[in-house]
């Protein structure tokens, strides 16, 4: 059984969370913009809380303010998680 890498696990968690927030599952990809997915500022706060809880890191929504795509958000989280 191939091991799930940390990067895959993080991406899976973000995709799943965005879907849970109401984004269309078929439209979720690294290249999709948060705006396209109708993910608003309150969703971003919640996404940060989910990452914080799972990885025990501190992520401020302010750090994601200038990001456009899902991939950029995942990369920002990955940097935090280290």
């Amino acid at each position, binding site marked *: 059984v191939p091991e799930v890498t940390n990067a895959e696990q993080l991406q899976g968690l973000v995709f799943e969370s965005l879907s849970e*927030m*109401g984004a269309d599952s078929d439209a979720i990809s690294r290249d999709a913009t948060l705006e396209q997915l109708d993910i608003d500022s*309150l969703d971003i*706060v919640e996404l940060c809380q989910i990452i*914080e809880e799972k990885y025990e890191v501190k992520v401020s929504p302010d750090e994601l303010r200038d990001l456009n795509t899902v991939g950029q958000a995942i990369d920002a989280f990955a940097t935090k998680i280290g």
Partner: protein
Amino acid sequence: VNRGEKDAIVVTGMGAETALGHGTERLFDGWMVGQSALQDRVGACRDFDPAAHLTRREVRNLDRCGQLSLVAAAEAVEMAGWLESPPCRPERIACLMGTALGGLTIFEKEFDVFRRDGAARLSPRAYTRGMANSSAAALSVKYGWRGESHAVVSGCSSGLQAIIAGARLLRFGVADAAVVGGVDAFLTDYFLAGYDAFGATSSSGHCRPYDRSRDGIIPAEGAGVVLLERSDSALARGATPVATLRGTGVTSDAHHIASPHPDGEGLIRALHEALSEAGFAAEDIDYVNTHGSGSVIGDRIEADAVRTVLGDASSGIPVSSTKSVIGHAQGAAGAVELIATALALRAAVAPATVGLQEPDEGMDLAFVTDGPRPLSDRTHKDALAGVSLSFGLGGHNAAAILTAIPANGSANSGSGGVR
């Protein structure tokens, strides 16, 4: 409200979510057959399935009040044909939703999170889901209604007061259409216990308005939404008005935070104001839909007030309480009951006060018991006239008078609408 037929304020759409189920038809049909939806001491919207009507995002981002409001509004908008034929520019559509407590149940949950996990784990949506104006805001956002929008908060009369406040915006000329109504949903153990604590709720679990054995209210949840327009513009866009809002009255007891004025002084004034604005005498009223909650004190004060204002004419005016089948839906009640009043007039029949077997001593009104009673146009107005009454904790009183031409067109036949 009503100065002339052209600028009369009409109801063009109605929507309701109640313990009897989804939609205004279920409400009226269930009430007609005397089906009580009260179970386990509450009137819960047990069949309400938000996912069947709303997007996943709406279900997730709104509390139950917002969800009930959106679903009720969808029925009203469809009935009025607003999507195909908007009543006016969106900037001229007001949206006022009444509520007693709003989405406070979210804070009950969030306070547990706060104590257990700390501030960092509080939901970023708790505040927006819980705030009293969340239903009005959710409706405005969904439909793009951009006129005046806010919550009307006046306890159990909130729903009717929101409707009257909306009508006044039309009359004052600051809006050309209004989305108005009421909502509440707080049937949690905590809030029910709070209600119990001040002795309002029935211990028997039965809602028996005006009955000798009545012992309190049955808390319920729900939403009622009504669309108001001016008669001339509604007709011009091809709408079929359901009813006309003829007169309104709103007063305050200025007496006690929980008890109504013992003489019903505020309620009496509200009903007088509504009659005066409508230009109606007691004889013109064909039906009274009372607040009738099953409250030991409130029912007596209301019965006396109605008798005082309508006088001897009251012996021929059928009276019934919708709460007898759906319970007391708090801030939704006044809106749902105005809708029930319109439906009764349209059908030319007054459904019964279910559970009322023996009116309490001295309550001298023509209570409808043992099944529906036909309504007749007592003064040949070519329409039936009905009163809807609401009063709330805090001493808030509201009365509205509607007229409607029965759906079969024969206001004078008196029996055509009985199903």
